[in-house]
């Protein structure tokens, strides 16, 4: 535990140094920040946008905007959190744009078709116990994607940031430009909607115990 705290501290200090050097005109110092934080920003962007193409665009745009606004960051300590926030804001814009695009399109989106072809879930794993089980897990996966897609941008953002990325409520409120209590409510609404959409497809521990299938 202490080791990970020390490591996080060391990264924050190293980030702060890289920011200082970038601001002093050493453009290559920004490269350190980009290479260090790209994966985590990609993860956030992918979970928010739901597709790789948009996620990659969000990552690039977040680091470009971060560079352009770096002067405003100088006083703060955590570059990772800061660029995260920029990425989340841009991802919200991208999701809104996608919604408009989808409303205009009548044919299925390209990534939907590609997603089905390249989807890791669709590649039958060797350890798949039975075809029924596989069908169930594919169906569940589709339902989960649909349920996430049905959330509003704010709900999806709040859920991704809180549940998957462990961001603080203040941070989420900052991205949503809302109060802390409104951000909490948004997290609640998101989980509630997901729950109601997915409950019929999910086996609870109690059901598993009753059926003797709990691992």
């Amino acid at each position, binding site marked *: 535990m202490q080791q990970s705290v020390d490591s996080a501290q060391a990264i924050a200090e190293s980030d702060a140094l890289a920011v200082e050097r*970038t*601001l002093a*005109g050493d*453009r290559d110092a*920004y*490269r350190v920040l*980009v*290479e*260090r*934080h*790209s*994966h985590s920003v*990609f*993860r956030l962007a*992918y*979970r928010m946008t739901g597709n*790789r*193409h948009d996620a*990659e665009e969000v*990552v*690039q745009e977040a*680091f470009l905007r971060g*560079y*352009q*606004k*770096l*002067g405003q960051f100088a006083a703060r300590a955590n570059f990772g959190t800061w660029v995260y926030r920029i990425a989340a804001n841009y991802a919200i814009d991208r999701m809104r*744009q996608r919604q*408009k*695009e989808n409303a*205009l*399109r*009548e*044919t299925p989106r*390209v990534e939907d078709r590609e997603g089905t072809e390249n989807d*890791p*879930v669709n590649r039958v794993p060797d350890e798949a116990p039975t075809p029924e089980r596989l069908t169930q897990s594919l169906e*569940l*996966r589709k339902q*989960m*994607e649909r349920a*996430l897609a049905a959330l509003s941008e704010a709900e999806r953002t709040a859920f991704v940031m*809180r*549940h*998957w990325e462990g961001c603080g*409520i203040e941070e989420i409120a900052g991205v949503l430009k809302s109060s802390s209590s409104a951000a*909490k409510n948004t*997290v*609640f609404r998101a*989980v509630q909607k*997901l*729950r109601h959409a*997915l*409950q019929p*497809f*999910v*086996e*609870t*521990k*109690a059901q598993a115990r009753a059926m003797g299938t709990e691992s």
Partner: protein
Amino acid sequence: MRHMREEELIAYREGVAERRAVIADHLSACEKCRAEMERIEAVLAALDTLPVPDPGADYGRQVWKEIAPRLAEQPGRWWQAWFEPRRLAAAGGIVALIVAAFVAGRITKHGGIGDNVVNKEQVRERVLVVAVGEHLGHSERMLIELSNEAPDNPKQKEVDISAEQRRAEDLLQENRLYRQTALREGDAGLASVLDELERVLLDVAHSPGEVTPAQLEAIQKKIEARGILFKVRVVNKELQQRQEASKPAPQNDSAKRERNKV
């Protein structure tokens, strides 16, 4: 005993509950609320199985490679970004479009108010059609060249595609602009093809400048599999037809004289 509300249980599970100790005590004593909590947890646990693709170990380097040419020399001064060559080119393109639309609008301004609105719409459409047509032509040429790239001899270990890669980077910027414009104009078909083209351009722009023959073949197969060259040609042809159709019909002299009286 008052049972916990769904809101309280979700807040507790997500670590944002204010009365954590109270809820924890209640859960340890109440079977009904524990079962309810299990149902919430089962849904969240299922959601946790949704995978995030691994962008690859060198993803950070790829991102840097993509954005480095677009960074200004000094950070923090927003206006500097607008003076980068690429942005200047893009901004120049937009200015040219606006000027062309304005000039064309002035030229066709002589009709009545109704005519003027229609003309402006037509001009805007024509300007977009011409610009996108040109962009698709450039993209098509780049993709054809890339599709025809091959090692000079069987022993050659790497093929230089850096020229195509740089062109793809430039085209990518333009493509985003036109895709967004097409969407704003409500042209879903054009936006869809531009979206597909963008993916191909992104792939090429992200490729290394020098690739092995196997990598080159994989890129070429990808281009072929998507059928993007065919789609680009079809859309370009359609745009040319639209361009022809939107050209104003020649007016006879008497009609012109009548208009000039107004």
